Structure formats: C-alpha cells, structure tokens
C-alpha cells in the first residue's frame, strides 16, 4: 500500500468513525489542533448525507417529524455512501428501516414511496400515446392488441396510509395520523412528461395492469376483468381503464 493510499484510508476511517485515533499526519498549530480540524470533516460528512436524504424523503420527514435526524443517523452509521452522486444515497433506506424499525413498519412504507417518487423524477424519458392513436386500430385487431407500458412505472405494496403523508408534504398541509390499512394496497408511481404522479390502484386494476406489462393481449385483459364484473361489464371497464392510462401517459405504444 502506498503512503498516499494509507493516509487516505486512515483519514477516511477517522471521518466515518470519530472513535478512530487522531491522525498523526495532520498538523496542529496555534489556530487549531488536529482533532478540531478533523472534526470539521466529520461533522460535514453527516450533515451532507442528512441533507441529501431530507431532499428525497419528504414524506418520511412529515411522518417522522422530530425523530427524523435520529433515524437518518442510524442509516448513515450503517451505510457509508458508495455512489459518486449523493442523490442516490437513499436507495437502501426503506430496506434499512424495514429491518431495523420493525416496531414502526409505516416508516419503511413511507420511505419506499418517497424513493419511488425520487427515482421516477429523473428516470429515462419515454414517449406516450393518447386516445387518437387508438382510432387507427381496426376493430378486428383489438382482441390481439398489446399495450406497451412505460418502463418507469412502479407498483408498491404498502400497509399504511403513506400516500396521505406524502400528499400532505407535497402540499404543505396538516400532517395526517398514521393509520394501518385493513388490507395492503398498491400504489402506482410514474412520471408523465416531467411530472411525477402517484395514486392508489383500484382492486381490479392491478391484475390487469400487471398482465398488460407482461404483454397479455387485450382479450386476456378483458377476461380478467370479467372475473370481477361479469362478461357484460368487462369490456366497458377495460375501455375505462385504458382511457385512464392513456390520459395519465402510462402507455408508450401499441403492438399486435
């Protein structure tokens, strides 16, 4: 190991863990001793990571309120940053909270939604089609029509009313109470043009959306809906869902 490499590793250890012995290589002088000088980097490291996390996890900020810094510090201590862009530092926070805060599972649910919104924000741009593209589909082609959905759409399963917290944070309105749901719900997160959206998926919508993502044809999607609504109402419901998805920018193309 080179002298430079040894110095950098030693200094980094001292920044990540203040209990590391002070560096003999750092000069002390009349202005400040080596410990005081090093402490600036130690404090700076934590502050920068905390600030970066707060930018991405605004629902969690709303939910955790005064306990937020302690939560983030636990994560910072357990997870040194490994990506050159600090914007990606929070990628493991939801899993960390799921593991370490089993007493408050709403925190992991919240972090999961925040991170999905964060990653959708600067995901790759994709085109989307509107109602007019459907007009060119001949009637005979509908049964085999396949929907090409946006790659950036994400579906999360949550057990708490985390969407209400995120909405309160986005709109700067009053913080709601934490509520455990009677049964888990699925939240769809996606970006249309430059705006990130999230909403709860309806019970019959999720299996149809999942099938559409797998490339199932329109006829199969309608068959799924028939299980919920009966044959007579399946096609109208599918048309309604399709209109909703098109308006939301979820569909980037059609294939047959």
């Amino acid at each position: 190991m080179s002298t430079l490499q040894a110095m950098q590793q030693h200094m980094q250890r001292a920044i990540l863990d203040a209990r590391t012995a002070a560096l003999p290589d750092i000069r002390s002088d009349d202005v400040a001793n080596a410990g005081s000088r090093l402490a600036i980097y130690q404090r700076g490291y934590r502050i920068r990571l905390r600030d970066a996390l707060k930018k991405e996890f605004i629902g969690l900020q709303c939910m955790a309120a005064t306990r937020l810094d302690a939560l983030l510090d636990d994560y910072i201590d357990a997870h040194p940053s490994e990506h050159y862009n600090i914007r990606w530092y929070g990628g493991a926070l939801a899993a960390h909270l799921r593991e370490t805060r089993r007493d408050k599972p709403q925190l992991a649910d919240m972090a999961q939604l925040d991170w999905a919104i964060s990653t959708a924000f600067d995901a790759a741009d994709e085109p989307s089609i509107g109602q007019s593209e459907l007009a060119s589909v001949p009637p005979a082609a509908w049964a085999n029509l396949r929907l090409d959905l946006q790659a950036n759409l994400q579906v999360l399963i949550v057990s708490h009313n985390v969407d209400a917290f995120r909405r309160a944070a986005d709109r700067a309105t009053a913080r709601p109470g934490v509520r455990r749901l009677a049964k888990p719900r699925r939240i769809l997160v996606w970006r249309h043009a430059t705006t990130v959206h999230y909403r709860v998926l309806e019970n019959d919508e999720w299996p149809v959306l999942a099938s559409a993502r797998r490339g199932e044809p329109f006829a199969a999607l309608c068959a799924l809906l028939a299980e919920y609504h009966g044959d007579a109402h399946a096609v109208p419901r599918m048309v309604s869902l399709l209109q909703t998805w098109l308006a939301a920018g979820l569909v980037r193309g059609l294939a047959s």
Partner: protein
Amino acid sequence: MHRGMRSITSTLATSAMTATRSDTLPYLGYGLGLRVEHYEALLAKPAQVQWLEVVSENYMVDGGLPLVWLDRFRERFPLVMHGVSMSIGSTDPLDSGYLARLSALAKRVEPAWVSDHLCWTGVAGVQLHDLMPLPYTEEALDHVVDRVKRVQDVLQRRILLENVSSYVSFAQSQLTEWEFLAEVAERADCLILLDINNVHVSAMNHGFSSLDYLRGLPVSRVQQFHLAGYEQGEQLIIDTHDAPVSNAVWDLYVEAVRRFGRVSTMIERDDNFPPLSELLAELEHARKLAEPLLRNAA
C-alpha cells in the same frame, strides 16, 4: 518553501515568461453558478448574466426535469460544467462509469470547458462527498498528474482543476499548495479554476500568504475565477458558500485580476439563497472592480 522538487524551477520560469492566457478556450465574462432556486429568475433576466456554470452531477441523470431545464439554459447561455465527484486525487481507480456519463453529458452540453477539484472524495469504494485535501508530496503529484492525463484522454479536452478550501494540512507535505497546483497544471497540461475565496479560507486556516499563492501560479493556466462567501467558525474559516463575498475576498480578487488579467469570473452560491438580484449586484461589483484595472492594463 522550496524543498528540492524536481520541476518547480521550470514551472516558475514558464509562468514568468508566459504573459498571455491559453488561447484555446474563450473568455466568457461574468457569470453565475446555476442553481434550482434561481431557474425562473435567471430565464427572466438573461441579459445580466453572461454565462452559467452547471454542477455536472446534477444533470448526469437519465431524463426528466433536470435535463429539460438544462436544455433551456443551454439555448440562452454559454455553459461550463463543474463536477464534484471526479476524485482526481483518490487512490481508488478512476471511476470509468462516472467518466463515461460525464463524457456523455459534455457531448450533450458542449460546454466551454469542464472542471473539477484538486482533491480526493473517498477511497475503498466509499464516497465522503467532500473535497478532501491531498498531502503535497512527490508521490501525490505523480499520482494526480497521471490521472489528469487519463481523464483528459477520455474527455478529449483539457480540464480545469480548482483549488479547494481545507481545514487540515499534512506533516509529510513537501510543497506548498500553490506549488503543487502549478506543477499538476504544467505536467498534466491542464488549466486552473482559481477559487479566490478558497485561497483566502485556506490561507487563514493554515497561515500562509494568499498573495504568495497568487504569485505562485502560472498566469497562462488560470482560466476561471470563483468568488463565494464563507462563515467564520470559532477557530477556522468554513467554506460555506452561504453568504455574500467578503471584503477580504474582494480585495484578493483585485490582486488576482492584476496578476492574471481578464479571466472568466463567477459567483458561487450554494445555500441560504438570496433573491437573484443580490447575486447580480455582487456580479456587478466584480465587474466594477475588474474592468478599470483591465482597461488600464490594456
């Protein structure tokens, strides 16, 4: 302060003989660091700012709003790219993934130039997200020079390296910071982004002369100036970029203009954002300080 380093003499001789700046890059005038907080206001008052510096990492993303804004600004302003994560002094291998994305962004932006910092930001795969100073040794010099050359090969352009503010210095250093920076620039054939505030902060924190620093850099290598504000801590000055440029830094800026001549200059503000008008007033102040000196020199 010389300690027998092999190329110091040649560096100083070169700087003394070179009276004009590299003519390979343009002079851009007076600019600002582009920050989200001023997006709308900047587009409303484009005429008062001659160019913008973007933080490279903010736009090294796959898509979405950041790139939409970037394209809007690119249509209206000359841009330069300024990175914080190259980690040119780290003993970890250069991050080829980072360089590939940086290179792709540079192709999209076509900036007047690309810069980063003379520092390391982490080792052993860890990122400290800070601009860590190097020991100014022969070993570090060889290491940095080699890496700058390799980065410049990847980017197919000369880069600018910025002096960082620092709070520690190392017992094993054999060179002053400015000797080290000058040597890197000469040996790697790169350019210098001189942060006037950082010179002042480090001079106060380590007890060296900021004027010696300016005198020690080769005129021909200094392509850009940064101006920023700092916070006076209990013992040390902290480079916070959250306050107006201090009087001491304005004074040093005047000295820098006297020494380096016409250099593209910008205000860097990263926190405690004032209305854009306050930054524009600071930029105007820079103009009023520099232009009479430059006219007289001409």
